[in-house]
C-alpha cells in the first residue's frame, strides 16, 4: 500500500474513533434538512428539484468543513506525531494528499447520506436527476476546495481554533467574491479586468453553474485547480517550516 493510502486510511479511521465523524454527520444532516425546508422554500416553490438544498451548502460548508480540516496538521504538531510521520519514508506531497483525500472522502460520505432528500423529490414529482447528480458533484467539489484551503491553512499554526478561523475567513471571502455587492465595491477602485478576475474567483458562481446542471469543463477545472493550488501551498509551507 502506498504511503498516501496508508495515511488516508489512518485519518479516516481517526475521524470515526474520535467521534468527530459522528458529531459532524449528525449536525450536517440535521442542518442540511432543516435549512432546506425552512430557509429554502422547499415546498412553496412547487418545483420538484433540489435547488434549495444545494443553495444552503456553501454556508453549511463554511462552518463544517473548517471543523474537519482544522485538526489535520495542528494535532500532529501538538502531539509530536508530525516528527514521526515526516521522518517515515513519505514525501510531504504524499502526506498532504493522504490527509486531504481522507477529508474529501469523508465529506463525500456526508453528502451521500443526504440521499433521503433525493428519494423524497423523486417521490413527490419527477425531477431532472441529471441536474441533481450535477448538483451533488458541484457540492462535493466545493467541499473539496474548502477542505484543501483548510489543509493548507492548518499547516500555519499549532492551534486548531486559529486554523478554523483562518479557513472560515478565506472560504467566506471566496464565497462572497462574486456577489454583486462586493463587485460593486471594487468597481470604483479597481480596473475592470481585475474586477472580472475577482468575479471569476468566486466559488459560488462556479458552484451554481454546475448545480444548475451545466457541466462546463471550465467550472470543473476551476475547482480542481483550486484544490491543487491550496494543497501545493500547504506543501510549500511545510517545506519552509523544515528549513526555517
Amino acid at each position, binding site marked *: *500500500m*502506498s*504511503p498516501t*493510502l*496508508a*495515511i488516508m*486510511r*489512518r485519518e479516516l*479511521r*481517526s475521524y470515526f*474513533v*474520535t467521534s468527530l465523524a459522528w458529531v459532524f454527520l449528525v449536525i450536517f444532516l440535521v442542518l442540511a434538512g432543516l435549512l432546506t425546508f425552512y430557509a429554502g422554500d422547499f415546498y412553496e416553490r412547487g418545483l420538484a428539484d433540489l435547488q434549495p438544498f444545494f443553495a444552503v451548502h456553501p454556508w453549511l460548508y463554511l462552518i463544517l468543513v473548517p471543523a474537519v480540516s482544522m485538526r489535520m496538521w495542528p494535532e500532529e504538531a501538538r*502531539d*509530536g*506525531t508530525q*516528527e*514521526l510521520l*515526516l*521522518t*517515515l*519514508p*513519505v*514525501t510531504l506531497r504524499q502526506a498532504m494528499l493522504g490527509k486531504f483525500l481522507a477529508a474529501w472522502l469523508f465529506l463525500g460520505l456526508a453528502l451521500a447520506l443526504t440521499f433521503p432528500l433525493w428519494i423524497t423529490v423523486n417521490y413527490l414529482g419527477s425531477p431532472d436527476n441529471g441536474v441533481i447528480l450535477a448538483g451533488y458533484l458541484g457540492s462535493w467539489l466545493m467541499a473539496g476546495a474548502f477542505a484543501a484551503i483548510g489543509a493548507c491553512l492548518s499547516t500555519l499554526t499549532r492551534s486548531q481554533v486559529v486554523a478554523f478561523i483562518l479557513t472560515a475567513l478565506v472560504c467566506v471571502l471566496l464565497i462572497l467574491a462574486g456577489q454583486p455587492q462586493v463587485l460593486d465595491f471594487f468597481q470604483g477602485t479597481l480596473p475592470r479586468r481585475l474586477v472580472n478576475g475577482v468575479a471569476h474567483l468566486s466559488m459560488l458562481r462556479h458552484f451554481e453553474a454546475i448545480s444548475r446542471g451545466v457541466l462546463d469543463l471550465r467550472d470543473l477545472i476551476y475547482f480542481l485547480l483550486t484544490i491543487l493550488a491550496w494543497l501545493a501551498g500547504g506543501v510549500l509551507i511545510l517545506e519552509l517550516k*523544515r*528549513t*526555517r
Partner: protein
Amino acid sequence: MIETDQLTRRYGSLTAVDGLTIRAEPGQVLGLLGPNGAGKTTAMRLIAGFLAPTSGTARVCGHDVVREPLAARRALGYLPEGAPSYGEMTVREFLVFIGRMRGLAPEVGRQRFDQVVSRLQLEDVLEQCIDTLSKGLRRRVGLAQAILHDPPVLMLDEPTDGLDPNQKHAVRQLIDAMARERTILISTHLLEEVHALCNRVVIIARGRLLADATPAELEARSRYHGAVSFSAPGSGLSQEMLGRLPQVTAIEVDPLDGRVTVFPRPGERILEPVENLLRQQGLEVSEIQLERGRLDEVFRQITLGDGAEGRA
C-alpha cells in the same frame, strides 16, 4: 552508518547545531551526550530529515538526507524525543500503519510484526489504545515502531527518559542485543547510560562538538582516574605517611564519612604502594577501591569549561 560533515542548523540568530562532524559505524553504539539544550535533539532531527540543515551534510548508509531523503529514511529507524504515537490507535493498528508506511509486503510485515511484538513484550496490550498505556509501555511501542522494518541504522532520542529502573534496564538490554549488526545513535543526558550502553561518546554543548572518545578514554581524563580510596577508622596518622609517598600528589578526606581518597601523580600506579603502607601501619581497612575515573566530573569539566577542549 551515520556520517555528518560540518552539520549546522540555525534558528534565526541562535545556532542550535554548529559544525557538527560525527561518524557512527556498524556494531557501534554512539552516545550523543550533552546538557539539556545542547542541540542533541536538533542534531537528530537533522539526521532524520525532519529539519533541513542550514549548511553541512548528513548521510545515513551513504544516502544524503537532503538529496535522497527517502532512501536515507528507509535505512533509518527513529525514535523521536518523547516517543510520539497516535494515541487513539491500538498498538496493533499503530504498528500495522507503520508497516504500511514502510511499504512492508504483507507476509514480511506480519513476520516482522510478530518478532517485534515478542521482542518488546507487547503481546498483552496489542488491542489497547496507546493513550491508555503507561509511559514505559508507550516508550516500548515507540521502539517497536523504530525497529519494525529491521533498519541497519537506529537513532533513539533519550530512549530511557522517564522510565523506572527496571524499564531502563529492559530497554538497555534490548539496545545491547540489537547493537551487534547495527549502527545505533542514542542521545542522553544520563551518564550511567553511557557506561551501560555506549562504546563511543560524543559530547556536545551549545551545538558544538567538545569531545569524541570511548567512555574509558573519557574516564582517563578524570582527576579520579587511578586514584585509590579507602575507609579506615582513625586514619589520621596514615594520611601524613601517604603524603610522603613519591607517587602521590594529593589526599582528600570526605568530611561526611571519613573516606580517604589518594590521588596519583600522572601516569603513576598507586594501589600497591598505598596498600603496602597501610599494612605496615597495621591499619584496619574495611574496604579499598581503585577508581576508574568519574564521568560526571569529566562531563562537567568539558561542558562547563572554556570549550577549548579541541576536537578530539
